[in-house]
C-alpha cells in the first residue's frame, strides 16, 4: 500500500454509492396542507435545504427519489399518492411529515387516512403540527444516515425484500402499471430465510 498515489482513497463501492445518493436526494413534494408551507420554507433561503443536497424539488416522480408527504391525505387522494410512489425509481425513500401524514392528526374522520404508513412504506416520521423546518432538516439528516447504513450499489437489499423472486406482471388494479407478481420459483419459507445473510435487515416497513 505504500505505492498508493496521493489523493487516492480506498473505500467500499457501496459506501461510495451511498454517499452519493444521500447527498443528492431529489424530493418529490407531495404537499397537501399547511405542512407544505413549512416544506417551502425549508427549501427557501433561510433554512436552505440545499446545504444537504436536497434542493432539487421535482414535480415528476420519475426524477425523484425522496417522497415528502406533507399534510393530510384523504382516502380519495391515497390511490394518487400510491401511484406516484410506484412511479418513482428505486432506490427511493419516504418522509411522512407532520402529525396528519403520520397519524391523521386531529382529523379523525371518515375521509382522512389515519397515517400514510398504513398504505405506503415510510422511512422517517416527522412530528409536529406543522413541524419546524429544522425538524424536516433533521429528518433528512436521519434519512441520510439510514441511506449510508443500508444501501448497496447493486440494490441487493431491495431485491432481498422481494423473497422469493417474483415475475413482473400488470397491476390488476391498473393495467398501465407493472408490478411484482407471483413467485417465480416454488420454494418453502425455510429456503427463503436461508438465502438471507445473517443479521441482514429485512424489516423495511
Amino acid at each position: 500500500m505504500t505505492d498508493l498515489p496521493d489523493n487516492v482513497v480506498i473505500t467500499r463501492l457501496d459506501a461510495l454509492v451511498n454517499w452519493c445518493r444521500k447527498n443528492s436526494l431529489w424530493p418529490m413534494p407531495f404537499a397537501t396542507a399547511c405542512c407544505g408551507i413549512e416544506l417551502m420554507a425549508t427549501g427557501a433561503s433561510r433554512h436552505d435545504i440545499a446545504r444537504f443536497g436536497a434542493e432539487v424539488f421535482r414535480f415528476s416522480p420519475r426524477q425523484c427519489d425522496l417522497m415528502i408527504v406533507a399534510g393530510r391525505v384523504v382516502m380519495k387522494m391515497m390511490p394518487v399518492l400510491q401511484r406516484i410512489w410506484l412511479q418513482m425509481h428505486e432506490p427511493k425513500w419516504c418522509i411522512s411529515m407532520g402529525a396528519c401524514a403520520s397519524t391523521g392528526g386531529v382529523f379523525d374522520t371518515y375521509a382522512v387516512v389515519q397515517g400514510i404508513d398504513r398504505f405506503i412504506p415510510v422511512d422517517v416520521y416527522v412530528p409536529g403540527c406543522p413541524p419546524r423546518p429544522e425538524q424536516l432538516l433533521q429528518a433528512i439528516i436521519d434519512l441520510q444516515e439510514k441511506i449510508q447504513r443500508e444501501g448497496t450499489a447493486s440494490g441487493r437489499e431491495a431485491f432481498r425484500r422481494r423473497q422469493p423472486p417474483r415475475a413482473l406482471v400488470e397491476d390488476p388494479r391498473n393495467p398501465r402499471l407493472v408490478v411484482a407478481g407471483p413467485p417465480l420459483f416454488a420454494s418453502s419459507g425455510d429456503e427463503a430465510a436461508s438465502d438471507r445473510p445473517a443479521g441482514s435487515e429485512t424489516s423495511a416497513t
Partner: protein
Amino acid sequence: MASPETLQKLKERFPEAEISEFRGQHRAVVPAGIVHDVLKFLKEEVGLALIIDITCVDYLYYPNARDRFGVVYIVGHPETAERMIIKTFVNDPAPTLPTVTDLWEGANWLEREVWDMFGIRFEGHPDLRRILLPEDFQDHPLRKDYPLQGRGERHNIPVVTRDLG
C-alpha cells in the same frame, strides 16, 4: 337582509310562506311543493337573480324538529346586495326536491354537493353525480346518523409495500 318591498311581494304572492327575521336576516319557510315557484318568482319578478348557495341541514336528533332535512337556498340581488333565505323541508325515505338548474346553471354543482353529502335527490338535474367524494362511496356522510369516523372507507384501500415497487 331583504327589503320591505320584497317581503311584501312574497307575502302577497305566496301567503303560505312563513317569513321570519333573525338578526337582520330574513328567511321564508315554504312547503317543498312550491319551492321552485317561489325561487322562480324571486328571480324573475323581484330581482333576486343570484343563487349564492344551496345547502342542507339534518335535523335528526334535533329537539322538537318535525322534519328531517331542511334545504336552504340563499338568493341575492346582484345590484342592491339584498339577500333572502328560502328554506324548505323534506323527509325520509327518498327525500326529493325539484331542481333549480333550469333557473340557475350555477345550481348544478351546488345541488350535486347536497346530493353527495345529504342524499337529497333533485328531480330533473342534468347530471346528479357525486362531486366531492369518490364515485364508489356508498353513504352520505353529513347525515347525522353517519358515524364521524366512517364505516371503514378510510381503511378500505389496497396497501402498497416495498416489494411492489
